[in-house]
């Protein structure tokens, strides 16, 4: 019925199944709010949510800001570019500054794994990891699970194929973990050079679409191809990637034939991991992922409590 609050949300791995269930279940009434004339509840009135993004991300940041606004929190963005971070201020100095401002929730994105956890240890505020290095992106995973649960009565046994740069993807890491925690089967499709060397034995790894389709997935989850990786020697060129691993028009036809669901964490690179036709695919859940992201983040903010004792 009710749940002990946690102080921080840093990854999926540390959540219990009951906690995952609690966050997903509460996201349903939060999503219902979006249909009302007043899309806002006073749940976090008087609380301050601060977004601290060391890596740019318009979408995730906006999603958190809309979520916090709809809970009536006061939302502030700590602008890294214009702050003293560029002058060499350490993360800890920044956190001390924020601590003095008495913010209640800090949403952190950083290119280095573990920074949100480090910040969490040094502040009374609740810290939400909005993506750290290759480590984790827990709210993305929660919104992915929530989105699929709207389509599948029971996720147990459903099969998701995750396609792309698995090795360097915190999304792949967190989302495949939550899918498996909810009883789904997960497989990876990636070029050999960016397939993780060590994966749990129950995750099949494919090098081409034919083998991956033969595994009979229900959901195709495309990862974003990071353009900055394109220059790296082990990464295929954009056109090569598209031809071999992208969702080409011909592959969209296979999805259509089989009625498979399509997901992508956004923003998409048209012509690389997906085509225009793929974007218009009728069973694409990409827009629903965006909408659900707000509801799930509201549910996370509702559950976490600044200063809560970590058990």
């Amino acid at each position, binding site marked *: *019925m*009710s*749940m*002990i*609050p946690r102080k921080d949300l840093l990854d999926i791995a540390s959540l219990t199944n009951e906690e995952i269930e*609690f966050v997903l*279940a*509460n996201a*349903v*009434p*939060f999503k*219902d709010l979006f249909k*009302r*004339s*007043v899309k*806002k*509840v*006073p*749940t976090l009135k008087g*609380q301050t949510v601060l977004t601290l993004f060391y890596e740019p991300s318009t979408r995730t940041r906006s999603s958190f800001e809309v979520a916090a606004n709809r809970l009536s929190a006061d939302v502030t963005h700590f602008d890294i570019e214009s702050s003293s971070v560029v002058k060499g201020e350490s993360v800890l100095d920044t956190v001390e500054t924020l601590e003095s401002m008495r913010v209640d929730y800090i949403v952190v994105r950083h290119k280095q794994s573990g920074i949100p956890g480090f910040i969490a240890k040094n502040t009374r505020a609740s810290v939400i990891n909005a993506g750290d290095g290759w480590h984790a992106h827990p709210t993305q995973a929660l919104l992915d699970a929530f989105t699929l649960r709207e389509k599948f009565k029971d996720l147990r046994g459903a099969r998701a194929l995750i396609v792309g740069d698995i090795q360097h993807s915190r999304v792949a890491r967190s989302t495949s973990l939550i899918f498996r925690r909810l009883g789904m089967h997960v497989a990876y499709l990636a070029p050999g050079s960016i397939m993780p060397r060590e994966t749990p034995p129950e995750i099949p790894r494919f090098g081409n679409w034919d083998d991956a389709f033969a595994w009979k997935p229900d959901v195709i989850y495309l990862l974003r191809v990071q353009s900055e990786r394109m220059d790296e020697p082990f990464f295929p060129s954009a056109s090569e990637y598209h031809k071999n691993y992208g969702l080409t028009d011909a592959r969209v036809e296979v999805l259509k034939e089989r009625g498979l669901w399509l997901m992508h964490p956004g923003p998409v690179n048209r012509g690389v991991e997906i085509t225009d036709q793929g974007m218009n695919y009728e069973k694409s859940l990409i827009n629903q992922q965006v909408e659900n992201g707000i509801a799930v983040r509201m549910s996370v903010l*509702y*559950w976490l*409590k600044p200063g809560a004792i970590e058990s």
Partner: protein
Amino acid sequence: MTQPPDKLRQLLDAAGVVRCLDEIAAAIDERWKNESRIALVGVYRRGVPFARALAERLIARGREVDFGKIDITQYRDDLQTMTVVPKLEGSDLDFDLEDAVVILCDEVIYTGRTSRAALEELLDFGRPRCVQFAVLVDRAGRELPYQPDYAGLRVDLPSEERVSVRFVDGDGYDEVFVRPWPVK
């Protein structure tokens, strides 16, 4: 039909609950006799079977009734001090609130804080023409200026006691009784 072991004494037996429900429904019917529709909105949790019991009686009297329920958790003023986070049940008002006559139903009014939250939430759904409060039990001890328009039973109890209500609908029996607050 298990009875709670910590029951101190009964305030209303099953017949008493039914009598109160009949009286409140009759009073609502009389007050709004020129109104074509009335909306009954139950406050989760036991305000919902309470509202449903009133709705059934009004329908039996030939009235047209809209029915809804609201979960006030998101509007509580004590969320920051609670040691556990309540699971949300969600609100469900799928009729048009504009210009509606709404009776907000809760099983007990005591401090008035739930009534404040319920009214605030209701008004976020739309702009009803009129809102009234119906309760089965009006317990003295208001902390906010909210008063019921309809009440089945009025009581004044020592602060260490709390009122518990049970409805056939959901609990299997009708009863109002007193028990101690749970130990915190």
